[in-house]
Every structure is written in structure tokens, then in C-alpha cells.
């Protein structure tokens, strides 16, 4: 019990930093979990680069959920990170197997995850939107990212971006989105 309270204390500080948008929290988590994650991934057919990538992905998942208010503290943050890496690494290994020429893997059609065509479509669409967003520029790009990715409320976005109030932010968001749609249809 004492140990879990200790972890809750340090985890609580980390979570507060994330809620405030302080990326130093991720640096601390990275240092604290790097060895364990590296050991796990390299033991399971991965390289140290893979381990770095998986850990960064897990930290981003944590960031997203905390910022969007969707994170529920049910275990230590290190446990959450470890479990997230395990899931992501399993999916990554499955994806790598699908991309290899079929040998023993006969069930190509029943493999989990999107097909190569679906991935291509997703990639192409993402490329179009990336291009349009970059042409959109700031502050629209940042506003849309705060709204759709970090899922902040209009009030939170107003505060972060220095807009007058939530209604102003809502109006700006609508304008930015309309501009984005126009760029996408060009």
C-alpha cells in the first residue's frame, strides 16, 4: 500500500504536468521506462530502435488520453506504458509478417488489420490532408489539431491560443475547417 501511494504521488505529478501541456513529463517517463521497454522489445525480435519507437508511441498514447480527459488512473503509469508497448509491438510484428512473401502464412485473407489496399488508401488520404493543412498554415493548423487531436474544449483552446472567448474560438474553427475543405477539393 505504501509503495502504491509512493507511485501515485510521482505519477500524480507527471499527470499534472501532462494536463498542463508540459512535455517534460514525457522526458521523465521516457528515462524511467527506457530500460524495461528495451529489454522487452529486444527479447521479442525487436531492435533497440524498435524499442525507442514503441516507447515514444506509448508516451504519445498517454499524452493523448490525458489531454483529452479520457485517461483513468487504474495502475502505475509504468504498468500502462508497458502494457501499451506490448500491444503495439504485437501488432507491429503481425504487420511485418503480413508484408513478407507468404510462406507458412497461408491465411492472408484472414490476417488481422487492414489490407495493403486499405493502408494505401489511408496513406493517400492522409497525404492529401497533410498537404492541405500545411498550406492552411498557422493558426488554423494548430487550432484544428488542438480540437481534433488533443480534444480540448473551446474554452481550453481559447486560453491556449489567446482568443477572446469560446465563441470566438468556435467561429475561427469553423472558418479554418471551411478553408481546409476548399483546399481539399482543389
Amino acid at each position, binding site marked *: 500500500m505504501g509503495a502504491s501511494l509512493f507511485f501515485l504521488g510521482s505519477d500524480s505529478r507527471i499527470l499534472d504536468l501532462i494536463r498542463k501541456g508540459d512535455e517534460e513529463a514525457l522526458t521523465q517517463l521516457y528515462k524511467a521506462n527506457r530500460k524495461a521497454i528495451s529489454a522487452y522489445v529486444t527479447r521479442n525480435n525487436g531492435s533497440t530502435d524498435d524499442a525507442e519507437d514503441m516507447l515514444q508511441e506509448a508516451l504519445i498514447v498517454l499524452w493523448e488520453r490525458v489531454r483529452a480527459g479520457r485517461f483513468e488512473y487504474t495502475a502505475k503509469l509504468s504498468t500502462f506504458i508497458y502494457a501499451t508497448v506490448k500491444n503495439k509491438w504485437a501488432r507491429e510484428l503481425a504487420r*511485418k509478417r503480413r508484408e513478407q512473401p507468404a510462406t507458412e502464412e497461408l491465411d492472408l*485473407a484472414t490476417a488481422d488489420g487492414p*489490407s495493403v489496399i486499405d493502408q494505401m488508401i489511408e496513406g493517400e488520404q492522409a497525404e492529401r490532408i497533410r498537404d492541405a493543412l500545411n498550406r492552411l498554415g498557422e493558426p488554423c493548423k494548430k487550432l484544428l489539431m488542438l480540437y481534433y487531436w488533443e480534444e480540448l474544449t473551446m474554452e481550453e483552446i481559447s486560453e491556449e491560443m489567446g482568443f477572446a472567448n469560446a465563441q470566438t474560438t468556435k467561429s475561427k474553427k469553423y472558418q479554418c475547417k471551411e478553408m481546409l475543405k476548399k483546399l481539399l477539393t482543389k
Partner: protein
Amino acid sequence: MDNKHWAYDAELLERYVLERLEPGQREELERHLTTCEYCRIAVREEREIVAGVRRLAREEFKAKLKHRLQTEQASLVPWIRLATAAAVIVTLVGVGIYNDWFTWYSEKNITEEYQEEKPATGDIPKRPPSEMNDEIGEKPASTGAMKQQEREPLEQKTRKKEGPIVQQPSVSLESASGAGEGVRRDYAGAEAKELDTALEKKQEKPLWVQGKILTTTIEGIKLQSEAPAAADRMTDPKTSRNELRITPESGTIERQRITLQQGMQSQVVILSQRTKSHLSPEHQAITHEVPTLIEQTEQGLQFTLYLDKPVSDDDLRNATIEPIHSDSLILHLGNQRIGYHIPGGWGSKLPAKQ
């Protein structure tokens, strides 16, 4: 309520895509989407925007995080090196001092003993004091062996340090070799045959697949039917080798034959087209996908595309197919690219048409 276009309400549409609608409202909208193509398209576009923004945001955040961590790591390294170097120097100096002291102490005690016990008659000197023996852990011996005794404890200590280092298993090498094998395997001839056999057994009837329309190109895809172009592409094992053999029927080109090859996989595909009006109403309502019937014939795989509008003879004549994976193809037809995922692979054979 089902008659209006829900897509006219941009906020409602957004809340649906972001999963912020109340359950009742969501179900009502989903019922509407089954019959309204306009709203389905609007929902799809909204989803693409949301997914695209999220994806870019993630990528940029990850790049920023990576840079931050690398910078942090780089700033620590010189300090780590300095600290390590300092620790090594301190250790060496410490060992050196200890050695010197030990030697001095031993010699001092021997000298004192010798002086104290020096016989007038020239007898052999006595053994060193007992405390020195305890420290060494050895039985006292003659003077000549003293230095050997002094050395032995230090050597024992050194051997103890060396032992574990030598015995440590090389775990990383084992895991690395295990990781390498699966990735390095190639799609060899014998394995390809085994795959074909297994896939043949699995598939028993003609197949309906949905060809997914990828982004269209304005210029369209122009086929280079001259041999050199095809020959050039043959050097790349993943590129299709397309041969056009036009099979005219009733004066109209309705079919097109294309030979594919990728590694050990090869296949002949015969393209034909029909309009969607031949399909049931719910299949006609599908947008951004081309219902396609795939059947095995004596000549190869016949792809019958059900299109909103038939393509021109030129477009059909100039069609190409690009294999991008053992179970995925892209059909270039006019200014469209249609992607197919074929369960079991395109190199496999479907049963002969009944």
C-alpha cells in the same frame, strides 16, 4: 426526420464522427445513412478530415518528442563520459595507493621483526607477526616465500572478479539471431508451389470483391504497350509484366487480357465490364467501390467490373494491372485507380466456371 439530409447540419455531423452524439440520436442518424448517399459521402469526408488532422498532429508531436529526447541524451553524454573517466582514474589511483601502502607496511613489519629478532648467531629469522598472517589468510612461511604470499590474496580477489565476466551469457546475440531468420526468408520456388496448392484447396467458388477507388489522377494512366517498357519492368520482380491481347466481341472491345508476374507468382487476368444496373439496389448504392466478380476460366481469372458508367474502349484497351502484394492489385482504368484485396492471393486459382 429521415427525409432531411443530416449532413446539412455540420455540427451534428461532426459530433457523430467524434462519437459525441447521444445513443438515440446516433441510431437515428445511422438508420438514415443506410438510405442516403449524400449523407454517407459527407460522413466519409468528415472522417477523413478528422483522421488526417489527427495523423498529422501525431506525426509532428512524435518528431518533436524524438528531437527533445535526442537533445537530452546528447547533453548527458559528455557528463557521463567525464564521470566515468573520473571514476576510473580514482579507482586506479586508489589501487595504486593501496598497493604502495601494503608493500610499505609489509616491508616495515618484516624489517621490524627482523631487527627485533635478529639473532647474534645468524639463525633464520622468525615468521612475520600474526596479524599479517590473518590479513593474508595464509599460513606463515619462510621469508623467501613472503612476497608470494602477499601476492596470492590479491590474485584470488582478481580471479573472483574475472570469473563472472567470462561466464556471462551472450543473450543479445541469441535474440538477434532469432529475429533475423524470419525477416530474411525469401519467397522461393518450392515454397511458392506449396502456397499455391494450399490456396487452391481453400477456394471453391467465384468471388465477389469490392474494388476500392483510390485517388484519381487527372492525366490518367497511359499504357506503354511497346515491348521495351515491359521488358524494363521485368527486371523489377514486383512490377507486373503486362501483355495486351485484345479479344473483340461483336465489334466492341468488352474484354482485355493482362498477364501478371511477380516473383514466382503469375496469372492471366481478363477484364470485362457491366453496368451497376445489373446489381441489386443496395449494391448499386455503394459508392467509392466497384463490385467485381472474379471467376476462374480456362484462360485465367476473369474480372467483371460493375461500373456506374461503362468505360470507353480506349480506357479498357489501355488498362494495366499493378501487383503490389501477393494478395493485392491495383487496376489502372482510365483516370481511375481501383485497388483489390483478393483473399487467398491473386496467384491462386479459383474453381472452373460451372
